[in-house]
């Protein structure tokens, strides 16, 4: 002990003590910290991936290949991310009923839990955009007017002024955005499904996506105000012209026929 005592004033003594102290706290932490939760999360994730793979083999593998590598009937899913799965399956577009110009929206047959499992499996194939959190897509507090400007600049050339949808080439179309879950709108912008271009966070930051969602909720939802009366679809002058011919001129012609049939006639005598 003499040796130790003699060196207790050595310039490096403090450092040695510090190392011992760190080793002790680290060791104690490693021994006592509540580690099991993190481990359980890991196993659930791998469980989700396993379950997702099982669902994938049943519903998706026919076209996208056994390992998501794609085939002549469907693109590769490596790197599309969980957001793409949540959008495509969550809106019922996938699994597709039949090939065509565009896969339409239909009734979703998976629960959100199952969708998350498939998403986890696809996300495990390669990094890609992940399902947004509620804070990311929530329109609360977003700038509606800015959203409108962004929508008219980036979206309305296909989706119409207020998101009523429009035609693309060869039977493809931009669908109506009315009643679409804000999460799905966000994911669509993020991933660019089917014929839509994608707007990743680098070109359209997360808060501007929320602005667009807020604008759509303001102008194209069941709670939107329509100061002019029936909207006739807000599709522009085509339905207006049809309405003017059928109901405007049609009514007036009907009245004209009625009036001409009720005239003063010279009595036969």
């Amino acid at each position, binding site marked *: 002990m003499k040796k130790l005592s003699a060196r207790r004033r050595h310039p490096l003594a403090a450092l040695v003590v510090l190392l011992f102290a760190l080793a002790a706290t680290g060791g104690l932490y490693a021994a006592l910290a509540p580690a099991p939760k993190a481990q359980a999360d890991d196993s659930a994730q791998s469980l989700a991936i396993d379950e997702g793979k099982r669902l994938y083999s049943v519903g998706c593998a026919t076209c996208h290949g056994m390992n998501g590598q794609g085939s002549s009937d469907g693109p590769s899913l490596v790197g599309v991310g969980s957001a793409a799965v949540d959008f495509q399956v969550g809106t019922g577009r996938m699994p597709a009923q039949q090939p065509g110009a565009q896969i339409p929206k239909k009734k979703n047959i998976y629960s959100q839990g199952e969708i998350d499992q498939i998403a986890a499996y696809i996300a495990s194939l390669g990094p890609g955009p992940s399902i947004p959190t509620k804070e990311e897509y929530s329109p609360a507090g977003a700038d509606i007017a800015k959203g409108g400007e962004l929508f008219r600049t980036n979206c309305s050339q296909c989706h119409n002024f207020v998101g009523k949808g429009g035609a693309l080439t*060869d039977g493809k179309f931009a669908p109506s955005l009315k009643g679409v879950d804000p999460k799905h709108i966000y994911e669509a912008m993020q991933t660019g499904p089917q014929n839509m271009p994608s707007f990743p966070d680098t070109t359209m930051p997360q808060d501007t996506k929320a602005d667009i969602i807020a604008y759509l909720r303001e102008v194209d939802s069941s709670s939107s105000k329509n100061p002019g009366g029936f909207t006739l679809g807000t599709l522009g002058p085509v339905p207006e012209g049809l309405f003017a011919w059928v109901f*405007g001129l049609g009514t007036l012609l009907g009245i004209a026929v009625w009036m001409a049939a009720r005239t*003063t006639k010279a009595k036969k005598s």
Partner: protein
Amino acid sequence: MSTTTESPTRRPATHPGERIAEWTDGRLGLYKLAKSNMRKIFPDHWSFMLGEVCLYSFTILILTGVYLTLFFHPSMNEVVYHGPYVPLQGVRMSDAYASTLHISFEVRGGLLIRQIHHWSALIFIAGMIVHMMRVFFTGGFRKPRELNWLFGWSLLFIGMFEGFTGYSLPDDLLSGTGIRFMEGAILSTPIVGTYLSFFLFGGQFPGHDFVPRFYSVHILLLPGIMAGLVAAHLILIFYHKHTQFPGAGKSEKNVVGTPLLPVYMAKAGGFFFIVFGVISAIAAVATINPIWTMGPYRPDQVSTGAQPDWYMGFSEGLIRVMPGWEIRAWGHTLVLGVFVPLMIFPLVMAAIAAYPFIESWLTHDKREHHILDRPRNRPVRTGFGVAWLTVYFTLLIGGGNDIIATHFHLSINAITWFVRVGFFVLPVAAYYATKRICLGLQRRDRDKVLHGRETGIIKRLPHGEFIEVHEPLSQQQLHVLTAHAQPRPIELGPAVDENGVARRSSPVAKIQAKMSEGFYGEGSNIPKPTAEEYEEITSGHGHH
């Protein structure tokens, strides 16, 4: 002096109304005017009220338009919106657009008046088309009414541009796209295109000038011309007297109907309020041109479903279906994809304007006509009319191809190809189909005259034969079915004259004779029953 005695027999006016009438008569000559016009006779038929629909919607347009001018700012100055419409708050826009939003959301009754104005515009032009078709199919454009046909046609043509300038004024994203479309069409004009565009917009598109300029044109120039044309149109109706359909007691020399005062005036006045009421009701329940949803115009933005109002739809269709051909030579580009439609657009309209003159030239018909034709009795003309309408409506389908594609789940390319082929094929098919139908109806008329109406009663004769009982038509009905003239086609005359020398006829005369043969020849008319045929068949021997 005897010449200046003030008719001592006339008792002085005592009643205040009488005195007012005396006063105005002395200054305006109202008695004479009223005497000749108050008992003017107007025949009664629903199709004669189509023009009234147009007249009244034009009146409504002027009334509501004046109200809108009180609040509209025809200015391109940039402002930031701070009004009540939340989705546009803080957005930069032109004063024109901001004031239209102001009219829509803040002016009392502003939105209703705007919607009445716009709905009446659509109905006005739709009414003019239907009115024009009524006149066309019944031959109401024939001498002496060719000029009135041109006046009416000018009203339609100017009305389309009046509507277009009005649609452009709010400077919203939809109308701005429409102006951009027009600018593109102007630019496609060879040589002068760029100059015309710079002249119209006062420089580079869109610039600051077009809204104030369109405003002057929309509220002053075109309505002024149109009001003048409407007045001329009406004066000519009074001067020519109204046409009437054939019928017993109706001739080229009389008009059978009700007098202007009191009957027709009451009906027409009532009809004005009905038209106003119907349009107001539509404007109260149905949105038209919701400019607030479209946002202010910015040349870098565009929306799908950007169409003009329906009356410009056929020009939109022409552009949409025309392949995007270009000719490049000597450093210049001739944009056929836009220029060809720009040239066809007036031709579609001019075809219908020139028709009365073409028909009278081809048929040598220089007589006055006050009795209308039944469309079936002029199969060629009716066929032409239907062919024109077919072209018009096929192009409207082309103009709305995107909306049709999404709503009927069709490919927009398929619709475009349908219109491309249909533009050439459908009018021809429609012409022949219409002509056949007309001839069929003529045969039916002939059959009805000679054999009477089928009663549906089956009678068994004593020897066992079954016959259907036919009921002879009344004299009135017979008159309607047989009153029309069936002119003979122009004859070129014998190929050699009486001396055996070959006669020369000009190529124009040959074309004329050929076309006339087409109009009135054997293939285009079923000879109407002659009196002899009628006598023979109805003289009583045997049954028919």
